[in-house]
Each structure stands twice: as structure tokens, then as C-alpha cells.
């Protein structure tokens, strides 16, 4: 992929310099060439040269396609599988076991084992989105009525960013997610412990329940089971608030709770600016504390 790009980049620079140089020469030269010579310039420079170069380039790129996107059957054993659903304007992420059953759900964050191909099942709950982790590879659209599949391979541990690449409405801009590529043992350990319990802050949790947050949000291990909005289990470990809108700090969480549409125009979450500041701060602190 990178090779393809650099071949094209250098080739394009040379061709551009050649064409513009020739144009410049043709405009400034003193002599005139015969029509036969000029005709040959068209034949060789305009027709035959591009035809040959493009044929080679096309062959290389087409050969590359199945290598860049190799296909794994959906029922291959030992396959890492993650299901991602695009929603306005966040990402629902489900980790699947080998039979395709959901292990657990999370949101706006994806963890991957380094060195193993992961197959994503991509769907949408509303409009067309496009799932893209620039560092790991190309994008794939999420289209109503279809399930698209994409397999990606993270080669180095690290934290990457993913975005929605297809315009999906007012806050298309604010629809990102974080990708955490981990060593496989750490990943497996995380998978195993991920079905954790709720936080330690009983009062924060009570406020969360009292204000109806659980109508939309789930926190595993507690009595919050809402499914409309993003799952908030272990929220404190996430890379961001509001699908990449803000950094994950207690202040930002509180700001988001009070006025989600200010941070993220068009967000479907109702605002909670009418609550006392102390309460929203407390809920924010509770969420930040979920590990």
C-alpha cells in the first residue's frame, strides 16, 4: 500500500514535471517543428506512454486488492470478531465470541490484539456512516439493510483514532472513537475482566439512577440496563467523552451532561442543565471513576 503510494507519488511528480516542462518549452522555443514530429509527440506522449504505464499500474493495484483486504470466512474458528454499529453520532461496539454471540457491549472505543486479524461486522442503526481507522487501513461504509465486513490487522501496540468518514448529519464531525492496540495476552486479560462490576461511588450511582440516566445507558454489573445510548461500563478508561468530542475529564463529562447539544450539535441526548451543578458534577465524578 505504502509502496503503491510512493511509486505513484514519484511517477506523478516526474510526469507532471515532464508535461509542464514540455508545455513551457513549446511556448518559449524559437524554432517550429514539423507537423509529422508534432504528431509523433501526440502518439507517443499522449497515447502510448500513458497506455503502457497505466496498464502496469492498474495490474499492480488490482493484484494488491485481495492482499490488502484478504477475506476470512465468517465461521473460521479462532477468528477475533467485533460488531460495530454506527449511530447518530456514536459507535456501538460488541465483542463477539467464536459462535457469533455477544460477549459484551461497549461504545466509542475498540480494543484490538496486536498481530492478529480482527474481522469487523459493520452495520448502522440509522443513516449511512463509514468506519475508518486511518492508521490501520481503508474505510468501509455502514449501510442500512446491509452488513459489511472488514478485516484489519494492527501491527504495533498503541492508541489510534477512528472516525466516521461519510457525512451523517449535524454532528458528523463529532463522531470519532479511540482504538487501543494491545499485546494479545493483555487483550485476552482485558476481555476476561471486562464484565466488571460498577463503581465504588454509591451516591453517584444513585444520582445516575434517580435522574433516569439508566433509561438509555447501561453500566454492567449494576441495575442500569438502558440500550438507547452508549454503554458506559468502565467509562473512566475511555479515551474521550461524546465520541471524540472532548477529552475524558470529570469537568468535560459534567459539561456534556449539562448541555450535550452545545458540545455536540444534533446529539440526541437530552440536556440536564436544570439539575443542580453539584448533582451533575457528582454524576460526572462517578462516571470518571468507573474503571
Amino acid at each position: 500500500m505504502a509502496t503503491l503510494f510512493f511509486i505513484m507519488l514519484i511517477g506523478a511528480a516526474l510526469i507532471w514535471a515532464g508535461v509542464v516542462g514540455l508545455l513551457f518549452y513549446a511556448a518559449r522555443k524559437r524554432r517550429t517543428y514539423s507537423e509529422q514530429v508534432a504528431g509523433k509527440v501526440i502518439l507517443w506522449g499522449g497515447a502510448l506512454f500513458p497506455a503502457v504505464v497505466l496498464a502496469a499500474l492498474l495490474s499492480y493495484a488490482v493484484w494488491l486488492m485481495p492482499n490488502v483486504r484478504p477475506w476470512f470466512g465468517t465461521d473460521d474458528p479462532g477468528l477475533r470478531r467485533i460488531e460495530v454499529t454506527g449511530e447518530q453520532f456514536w459507535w456501538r461496539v460488541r465483542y463477539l465470541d467464536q459462535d457469533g454471540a455477544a460477549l459484551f457491549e461497549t461504545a466509542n472505543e475498540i480494543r484490538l490484539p496486536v498481530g492478529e486479524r480482527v474481522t469487523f461486522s459493520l452495520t448502522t442503526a440509522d443513516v449511512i456512516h463509514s468506519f475508518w481507522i486511518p492508521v490501520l487501513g481503508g474505510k468501509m461504509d455502514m449501510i442500512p439493510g446491509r452488513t459489511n465486513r472488514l478485516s484489519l490487522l494492527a501491527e504495533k501496540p498503541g492508541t489510534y483514532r477512528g472516525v466516521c468518514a461519510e457525512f451523517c448529519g449535524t454532528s458528523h464531525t463529532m463522531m470519532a472513537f479511540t482504538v487501543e492496540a494491545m499485546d494479545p495476552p493483555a487483550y485476552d486479560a482485558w476481555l476476561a475482566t471486562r464484565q466488571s462490576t460498577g463503581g465504588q461511588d454509591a451516591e453517584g450511582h444513585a444520582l445516575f439512577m434517580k435522574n433516569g440516566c439508566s433509561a438509555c445507558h447501561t453500566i454492567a454489573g449494576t441495575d442500569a440496563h438502558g440500550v438507547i445510548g452508549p454503554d458506559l461500563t468502565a467509562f473512566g478508561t475511555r479515551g474521550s467523552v461524546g465520541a471524540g468530542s472532548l477529552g475524558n475529564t470529570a469537568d468535560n463529562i459534567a459539561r456534556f451532561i449539562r448541555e450535550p447539544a452545545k458540545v455536540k450539535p444534533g446529539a440526541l441526548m437530552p440536556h440536564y442543565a436544570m439539575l443542580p451543578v453539584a448533582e451533575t458534577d457528582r454524576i460526572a465524578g462517578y462516571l470518571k471513576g468507573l474503571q
Partner: protein
Amino acid sequence: MKSFIPREIETLWTLFTAPVVWALHFVICYAAVAIFCAKRLPASFDFDTMRIALFVVTLAALAMIVLAAWLAWRQWGFGADDPPHDEPTKDSRALFQGFATLLLSGLSFMAVVYAAIPLIFIAECQP
């Protein structure tokens, strides 16, 4: 030869013969693969059979383009007269048509060859 090669005809439309062959070839390839991959029709085919079938279609298309090119070459007087073909005569106009048609046949030939390249490298319906 004379018995089945058509006589020269006076029309603008012959100019478009080779590109039309390209278009038909393109539509056949696209539709065949789209229907095959979506429906697995016809059921007796596997993907390799489909590729071979499309190679045959490609050869047929190339043959038609070569025929069009030959007719154009004839209209161009087998290269008897070089461009620019700008005399105010019927002959010059016919030579121009022949030469332009020949060039278009060349382009269409290349375009059909390009369209066949994916058949070499891609062996599955995978997305």
C-alpha cells in the same frame, strides 16, 4: 473476404462502433459478476467458470473491435494518406472518418484489455 465484410457505408455512426463494443463488454462483465455474486446464478457456475466465460466474451469483443479497426483502416485507404485530411472533398472527409475510427478502435481495444485485467487477479466475490 468480400462476401461477408460489409461495403463502405456513408454514415456518421460507424465512428462509434468500437466504443459501443467496449460499452457492451463492460456492461456484460459488470452485470454478469453482479448477478453471479448476489444470486450465485447460474447455479452450475463457480467463480472460475465465470472468469473463463468472461475471458471468452473479452476475446469476442476484441475480435469485433479488430474488425471495426480493419474497416476503418480500409476507409482510411490502408494508410494511403496522412492527416490532416482537411480538404473540402468527400474523399478527404471519408479519410478523416476512417482515421478517427481507427484511433477510437485502438483506444477501445486498450479499454477492453484493461477491463480484463481484474479477471486475472481477483478470484473470489469477496468484498
